[in-house]
């Protein structure tokens, strides 16, 4: 991850939510609630750790956000709303944030939630001894000294966060950040109960030991089967919480998930690839497709060591990008409401205006004609066909896309794309090591600002699997860090990347799911898919 020093997110006017109302289950007057307020949610078998300092995947995060609470939560649209803190102050250059923790915020054991709990939680997250995958997150969002602590150069006590008193938390940032409050919904920024962690060690998250500060408390955690949480009567906003019990049920097979949804055993489950049109037709009130903050793309290896000379030519890469008929892929192969992608940054990113790259403005016939000309100009033809190798990890959806694209290449350009399927870990290793020609790739934003996407094109970025290096792009990204509005720079980065064809964007994700019509309050418009059990309710049917 590149470390930027200053990013201003347009469309994010922090002063307006200095003191915002709390957000909870918004039940309209006169609503008849269901007698049984249990929400059953399908998860994959990856509830790895309920320790907020360690959690890394979305399913686990959904459990952790129900049992813990950070300073600020997100509302249904993704805007920050007060959580364990009731308000904050910020200095003029937006480098010092002071949070005021609610007097009535309590842990499940009755102890008050204090500023010290947050200091301890954040220090744990960056402590090399904790060994968190997300240790870098605090440095990313700008907390002073976070990177040096992760590197073992400074003690954890040097972290730029301190408890002024029991209920006042002061955070020092290494750069001016108007969007810092937006980063607080991430589990890495949650508090930890020091006495409990020190007493039980790694066992502190076991149901019999855990002490948490969220709207729910953990009652069962059986890996591979289920995690059960129940309402926490000590939660400060318990009066506005409606759902009594949450069950996170492990169902690895999507089709089995759908069968169990139909049998009424789960309230929400993902729709398997290709089944959305049928579901939408048969169950129009239950099938949903909403935008998701991720981009699916092909990485092209541009490193000098990459042996395929064809891919080193810009016109060849451009032809390969032009020949991909994204409309066919999203409408005929995926069929789940995905959007064709011609750039990398997700169009739902706050403050970002997507540039219209030439590729997007053309019809597919025009693209195909241009692709044919480019590939011929590059010296490839029927008697001298271009050969490329494409790797992807075993999955029905990835396979369908690989086959469809190789077909398009063969028919339109006479290019032989050899597709090679492999285990996920093998793909990751080869992609990270630069041992490939073309590879399936996907990226989901960590926070709602365009740098979470475009920073991958920085030649120094560890996530730059394409080994793409363009001095102009590096300069634009550096400039963006100090610009008042970095979004024009981001747009220029996208334009340059589209010209160089460093990647082939394919589509923007959508989350395709079935939901029990009794469930209300789901944040369909939160593109990061951050949801809170406490904001939901079930109506009587």
């Amino acid at each position: 991850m590149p470390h930027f020093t200053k990013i201003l997110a347009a469309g994010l006017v922090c002063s307006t939510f200095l003191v915002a109302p709390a957000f909870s289950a918004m039940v309209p007057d006169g609503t008849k609630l269901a007698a049984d307020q249990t929400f059953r949610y399908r998860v994959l078998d990856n509830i790895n750790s309920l320790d907020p300092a360690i959690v890394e995947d979305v399913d686990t995060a959904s459990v952790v956000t129900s049992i813990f609470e950070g300073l600020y939560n997100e509302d249904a649209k993704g805007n920050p709303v007060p959580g364990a803190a009731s308000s904050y102050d910020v200095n003029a250059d937006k480098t010092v944030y002071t949070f005021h923790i609610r007097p009535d915020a309590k842990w499940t054991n009755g102890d008050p939630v204090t500023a010290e709990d947050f200091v301890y939680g954040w220090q744990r997250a960056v402590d090399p001894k904790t060994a968190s995958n997300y240790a870098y997150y605090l440095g990313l969002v700008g907390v002073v000294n976070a990177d040096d602590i992760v590197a073992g150069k400074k003690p954890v006590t040097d972290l730029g966060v301190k408890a002024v008193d029991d209920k006042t938390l002061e955070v020092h940032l290494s750069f001016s950040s108007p969007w810092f409050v937006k980063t607080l919904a991430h589990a890495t920024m949650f508090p930890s109960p020091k006495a409990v962690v020190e007493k039980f060690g790694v066992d502190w998250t076991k149901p019999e030991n855990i002490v948490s500060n969220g709207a729910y408390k953990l009652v069962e955690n059986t890996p591979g089967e289920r995690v059960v949480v129940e309402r926490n009567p000590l939660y400060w906003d318990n009066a506005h919480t409606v759902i009594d019990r949450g069950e996170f049920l492990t169902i690895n097979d999507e089709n089995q998930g759908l069968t169990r949804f139909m049998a009424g055993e789960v309230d929400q489950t993902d729709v398997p690839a290709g089944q959305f049109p049928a579901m939408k037709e048969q169950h129009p009130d239950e099938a949903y497709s909403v935008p998701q903050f991720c981009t699916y793309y092909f990485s092209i290896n541009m490193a000098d060591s990459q042996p395929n000379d064809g891919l080193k030519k810009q016109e060849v890469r451009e032809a390969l990008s032009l020949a991909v008929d994204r409309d066919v892929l999203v409408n005929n192969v995926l069929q789940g409401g995905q959007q064709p992608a011609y750039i990398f940054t997700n169009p739902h990113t706050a403050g970002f205006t997507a540039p219209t790259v030439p590729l997007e403005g053309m019809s597919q016939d025009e693209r195909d004609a241009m692709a044919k000309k480019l590939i011929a100009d590059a010296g490839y033809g029927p008697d001298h066909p271009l050969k490329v190798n494409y790797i992807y990890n075993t999955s029905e959806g990835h396979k369908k896309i690989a086959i469809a694209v190789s077909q398009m290449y063969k028919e339109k350009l006479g290019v032989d794309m050899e597709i090679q399927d492999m285990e996920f870990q093998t793909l990751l290793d080869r992609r990270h090591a630069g041992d490939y020609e073309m590879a399936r790739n996907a990226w989901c934003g960590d926070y709602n600002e365009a740098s979470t996407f475009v920073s991958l094109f920085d030649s120094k970025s560890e996530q730059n699997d394409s080994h793409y290096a363009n001095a102009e792009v590096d300069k634009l990204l550096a400039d963006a860090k100090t610009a008042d509005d970095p979004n024009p720079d981001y747009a220029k980065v996208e334009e340059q990347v589209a010209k160089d064809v460093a990647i082939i964007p394919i589509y923007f994700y959508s989350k395709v799911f079935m939901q029990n019509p009794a469930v209300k309050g789901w944040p369909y418009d939160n593109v990061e898919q951050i949801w809170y059990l406490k904001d939901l309710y079930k109506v009587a049917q």
Partner: protein
Amino acid sequence: MLKFILKRLAVAIPTLLVLIVFSFILMKVAPGNPFNGEKKLPKLVLENIYARYGLDKPEWRQLLEYVWNIVAHFDFGPSFQYRDRTVNEIIAQGFPVTLTYGCWSFVVASVVGISMGTLAAIRQNTWLDYFAVGITIGAQAVPNFVMAPILTLIFSLGLHWLPGGGWNNGAWPNVVMPVIALSTSYMANIARIMRSSMLEVLNSNFIRTARAKGLSGGRVLFGHALKPALLPVISYLGPALVGMITGSVVVDVFFSTGGIGSAFVNSALNRDYSTILGITILLGALTIAGNLLVDVLYAWVDPKIRY
């Protein structure tokens, strides 16, 4: 006999050691690592994680320490994937689940299989025989990954009799479908083996002698034919028992039982080194025990075999 058992147990220890070393090497050679994700971890973060789990040490030392912890403390180490659990805890939680539905499946498969095979043999070429053979061929032709969704469609979605998944601490409605899905193909195999071996035994000379003595059909069957006819079935039952109690990935995944089968496959896919090794050792030990049990049973069933 006791000497034989002790000798076999003594051989089991080096066998397990070879298994550990071999699995350890295979695991390290496989690409990837347990902390790899779509997003590449910063180098420093990865180094901290490696240090936390001792993966920064030379590989021979990791192996020695691993074996030492097992021998001295019976400690299989922390899981890398389930970061707040140890491998001992994962096995302690998952194995009883698998053992429960595995034992039920074993009982169902052997009782139904042996009875069906015997019935088919003594009523050879009657409708009963055709019926039993039909069922076994059908059960064999439908693998459990087809059987499991069919069962849920019928019993969960159609009839609403049984929950489509979960374990619920082993409540019987949760156990029924995993047992049916797991036991059918074993049951079919047992029935097939039983039928052919029973037919062979019934046509042998000593049975003709027994019949000539004027013994009743039941005495001939239970007193003379059953024991020798069981011999090939027993050699199949050993591995079948181990196969069933160590769980089926398909059953675990489909019915979300939380058993050891899905943990095994997940740990392999996620390169959760310590969990793969822990479960491999468990499966290895069970296989060795299962084979030993078969050999002991052999001696009991067949008087010609003496150790």
